[in-house]
């Protein structure tokens, strides 16, 4: 029996919809009833705001993830303990207080998470492919290692470890090892290279495949993070500028340079979710231009233009040809310019934005996002003729839709020079 569309959301429905971004719970209560409940919430003046509040709190819970860096405290256990905890080596009575410590500690919590990820018994398809391609996965490699291990057993120290100390491993096979250019530190950890002679030329191809696999899953959620930010821009467009990937939405003039009246509770849930992803992405890849750009986009949304500019300048250094970085940086200059009190400073920021957009359009004259934004910059600089030319060109390239309507409206308001 399907749900009555007139009924308000039940507590279960409200919880289910508030938590639908929680991937592990997504299956709970999915189906046509959920769609109907969602449709009801969208049209209901009682349930809509209530659901929005619940989603905001849920996103806030989600955004409480550990920050990028935390300092080790005196009572933090040794780092290697967390691997043992994740593996269940210490007895529960010893592990319990350590888990409680990790749950309260921004330094140890991420270490425990990393350890559980390392020891996770489930393999993704990419990981399986990576391992399958390793020379050590072949029967020949394994047989050769077994023979070498057991054949050299008389040299082994009974009960002792080969690794006498970190980086000071003494290997029996060193006696017979061939010399090769080492990727390892010169003064320690002398790995043998017999895998190379045992598994000949195919290794090069394996390296290429493996590298591809590694690259593929090194930043798994950057694109979804950017989609979330674009969704936030669509839902609550904070300024006139167009944002790459975002749909049309009316400008909500509630932003400000992080003023005290501004609450994070007001942010779209997608943005808060994205910020959690960004913190994790930057923790793993602090120099990655993509994550720096994503962070700057979130800053842009929140009106933190100076921070966004600094992040985007770093990203631009790494990816000087990336037009999306230039468009974002132009938006940040434009945004900062709007808050400048001095006319000259304001004009300077607008001109910086203009230069960046000119560069993008020089590369691709049909970039509608850059063209739309440049027209806005010309308007702010009171360059009406240039603004009109850009709007007209824009409407040739994008004649229909809500962005086109917005362009027509801007064009209509400009003083005609002819």
């Amino acid at each position, binding site marked *: 029996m399907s749900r009555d569309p007139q009924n308000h959301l039940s507590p279960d429905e409200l919880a289910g919809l508030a938590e639908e971004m929680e991937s592990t719970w997504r299956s709970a209560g999915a189906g046509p009833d959920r769609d109907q409940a969602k449709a009801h919430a969208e049209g209901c003046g009682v349930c809509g705001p209530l659901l929005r509040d619940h989603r905001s709190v849920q996103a806030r819970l989600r955004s409480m993830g550990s920050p990028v860096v935390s300092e080790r405290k005196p009572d933090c256990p040794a780092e290697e303990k967390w691997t043992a905890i994740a593996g269940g080596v210490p007895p529960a009575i010893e592990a319990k207080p350590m888990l409680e410590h990790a749950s309260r500690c921004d330094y140890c919590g991420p270490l425990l998470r990393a350890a559980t990820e390392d020891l996770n018994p489930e393999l993704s398809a990419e990981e399986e492919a990576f391992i399958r391609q390793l020379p050590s996965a072949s029967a020949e490699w394994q047989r050769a290692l077994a023979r070498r*291990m057991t054949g050299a057993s008389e040299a082994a120290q009974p009960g002792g470890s080969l690794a006498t100390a970190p980086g000071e491993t003494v290997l029996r096979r060193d006696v017979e090892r061939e010399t090769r250019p080492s990727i390892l530190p010169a003064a320690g950890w002398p790995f043998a290279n017999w895998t190379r002679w045992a598994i000949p030329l195919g290794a090069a191809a394996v390296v290429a495949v493996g590298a591809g696999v590694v690259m593929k899953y090194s930043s798994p959620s950057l694109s979804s993070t950017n989609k979330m930010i674009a969704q936030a821009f669509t839902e609550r467009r904070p300024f006139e500028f167009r944002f790459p990937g975002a749909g049309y939405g009316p400008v909500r003039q509630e932003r400000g340079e992080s003023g005290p009246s501004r609450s994070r509770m007001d942010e779209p849930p997608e943005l808060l979710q994205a910020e959690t992803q960004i913190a994790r992405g930057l923790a793993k890849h602090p120099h990655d231009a993509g994550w720096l750009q994503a962070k700057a986009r979130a800053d842009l949304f929140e009106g933190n233009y100076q921070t966004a500019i600094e992040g985007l300048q770093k990203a631009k250094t790494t990816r000087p040809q990336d037009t999306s970085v230039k468009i974002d940086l132009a938006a940040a200059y434009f945004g900062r310019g709007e808050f400048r009190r001095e006319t000259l400073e304001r004009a300077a920021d607008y001109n910086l934005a203009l230069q960046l957009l000119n560069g993008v359009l020089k590369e691709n004259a049909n970039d509608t996002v850059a063209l739309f934004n440049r027209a806005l910059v010309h308007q702010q600089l009171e360059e009406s003729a240039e603004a009109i030319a850009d709007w007209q060109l824009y409407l040739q390239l994008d004649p229909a839709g809500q962005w086109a309507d917005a362009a027509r409206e801007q064009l209509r308001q400009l003083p005609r020079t002819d």
Partner: protein
Amino acid sequence: MSLEELIKACAEGDNPAAWEEFIRRFHVLIAAVVMRTARRWGNCSPELVDDLIQETFLKIYADRKRILSKFTPEDPEAFCAFLKVITAHLVDDYFRARHSQKRGSGRLEDSIDESAAVAQAAATNRPAEDVFRNLQLKEVERALSACIAGVEQERDRAIFWLYYRDGLSAKAIAALPSIPLTVKGVESVIHRLTRCVRERLV
């Protein structure tokens, strides 16, 4: 050959066939841990992963009396977990040794060190965000305290924060041997507490 028989054969002597079988059975388990741990350190080349896999098996062989004695037929999973821990420690030790050598040589090109420096600098520039986050954590902790009760309240509190603060999935929490709950059990705790906390914060 059962796992128990295999471990016994490996522990007793230098039987190449037994060790070959041991390597075959545990290759994926060890390779997965090496690959992920090396990836966390920023170098997951197949060549290095293979070297570290080899190194792990050599260590197990050299220390076989101690390591293989950890196996009990009643709990083979515990032995697998022990092998994983040995592997992760070996990989961590390798990278730590490599980084300390680089530091000792005065070279600064190491990306991890550089990353840490940048991240540290970023951390010092975010006092406002930290203050905001700490306020949030306290607010949620107050709501959470009102939601938990019973003999397992410390366990439930830890589950909640491991999930939201540390980012462990329900599956990862349930996989921790010191949390005696299934994935569904952990999800149920998180779900119940989340709903209660959310209702108090709305």
